[in-house]
């Protein structure tokens, strides 16, 4: 979907066929686990033993691994440097001139990265394997206001539209002799003719878009139906309840156990 600002990858897989709320529950559980699991390596182990096989099952292993890598690596590296180099006191591991990398800082960075890995890993699985509109419809069926669903979905599609519109405006203004390359002063002066049509145009559009939505029955009274069929099953429903219970258990256990290393 290049017209949509989403990372969804269409595949024929069991993961894709799962109900969106099941995957949302998995993401939620993974987030809680990431925050509650003790120790240094459990989070990484959970990722390797649970998330990666699930991604493989969803036929998105390659894309998933790449997304995780790209998202987390810069974060993990900067965390490592910041915590490692600026940890007050502590045991130095490596000395690089006046700076030294502290063991405690490295441990902190590794643990935190592991947490983030699980917290974001679940949502990445969700995003890669779930159509945004399927998720929104599932939530709307459970009582989320339709206007929120509408706003989320249109935002996903509006972002590429903005880009296309900005390109068209750029073309038009260049054709009127506007120079956009060159020194900083020139570039700043080029901003107004580019931004104003974009903003004004979007504001003008809002009125018509609202009318179009009304004409399509957006605020028509009565129950709504859905073209998209979301397959669900008793076992998934049970699984979601189980995951929810599991989240509660983890949170309670974490609180009870106090500060775990």
């Amino acid at each position, binding site marked *: 979907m290049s*017209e949509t600002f989403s990372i969804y990858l269409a595949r024929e897989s069991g993961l894709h066929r799962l109900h969106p709320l099941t995957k949302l529950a998995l993401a939620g559980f993974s987030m809680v686990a990431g925050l509650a699991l003790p120790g240094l390596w459990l989070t990484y182990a959970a990722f390797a033993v649970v998330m990666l096989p699930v991604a493989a099952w969803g036929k998105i292993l390659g894309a998933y691994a790449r997304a995780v890598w790209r998202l987390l690596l810069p974060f993990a590296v900067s965390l490592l440097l910041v915590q490692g180099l600026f940890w007050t006191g502590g045991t130095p591991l490596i000395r690089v001139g006046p700076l030294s990398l502290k063991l405690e800082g490295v441990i902190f960075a590794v643990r935190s990265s592991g947490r983030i890995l699980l917290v974001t890993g679940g949502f990445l699985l969700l995003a890669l394997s779930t159509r945004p509109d399927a998720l929104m419809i599932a939530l709307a069926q459970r009582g989320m206001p339709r206007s929120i669903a509408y706003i989320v979905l249109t935002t996903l599609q509006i972002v590429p539209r903005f880009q296309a519109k900005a390109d068209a405006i750029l073309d038009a203004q260049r054709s009127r002799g506007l120079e956009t390359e060159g020194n900083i002063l020139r570039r700043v002066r080029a901003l107004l003719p580019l931004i104003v049509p974009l903003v004004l145009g979007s504001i003008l559009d809002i009125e*018509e878009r609202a009318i*179009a939505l009304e004409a399509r*029955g957006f605020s*028509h009274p009565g*129950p709504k*139906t*859905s073209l998209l069929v979301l397959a669900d099953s008793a076992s998934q429903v049970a699984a979601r309840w189980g995951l929810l219970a599991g989240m509660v258990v983890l949170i309670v256990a974490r609180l009870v156990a106090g500060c775990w290393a």
Partner: protein
Amino acid sequence: MIHVHDLTYRYPGQSRPALLDVNLDVPAGQFCAVVGANAAGKSTLCYALTGFVPHFYRGKLQGTISVAGRDLLQTPPGELAGEIGLVFQNPFNQITGARFTVREEVAFGLENLGLPREEILSRIDEALALTGLADVADRSPYALSGGQQQRLAIASMVVMRPRVLVLDEPTSQLDPVGTREVFAALSALAAAGDTTVVLAEHKLEWLAAFAQRVVALSGGQIVADGPPREVLTSPEIKGCGVGQTRYTQAARVAQRDGLVPADKPLPITLQQAIDFFT
């Protein structure tokens, strides 16, 4: 089906009325065209027939409007969806943005009306066939050309099977062949008896061929109302910015030059012109 009585309307903050003493009665199943210069009130009339004037635009309205048995002054536009449809000029703004394929986009309105899924599925295919979009049913609405997007706007409204369908210049991005197809489809809808079509347009050649009735607006007032041939060749139209088909122009010049009797009724279509000159 449409009963407009003594309608006068001013947009907020405007002293000049956009519509003045408009009286219009359109029977069910008629294909009625509205012509006039830009700013003559065509769009305002389209909005008045669909409830957006005055409910959306506010302003001051006098008179009564009844469409498909509903008093439009008492009914918010949202409730009218499914009975009264509106297609306007900008196709891009009519894409909801909440659906990722053409098929689902067309279904949007029916989902809002709460129709059962099987009904939605069959109606979608019908609407896509009518507007020639069957080939692109699985593409993103944003991947379509401007002309295809205009057809999509029409399909999305036609699928809701409104009793009255109002269209405000819906063919601006279409080439003549595409325009003809749209006019033919609208004409067929009206002829089937289920839909009353009101179409505001500049393209006289196609109106001449397909519309059953033409209403001409100037300065917010109706200056002519009747069969296309009568209205599009009448003297009242002359100062109105409506123009004439080339057939009418050629006939006028021929009459001016004494090549054809001055009392012969002027043509607006090719066939009428052929008959006129032979």
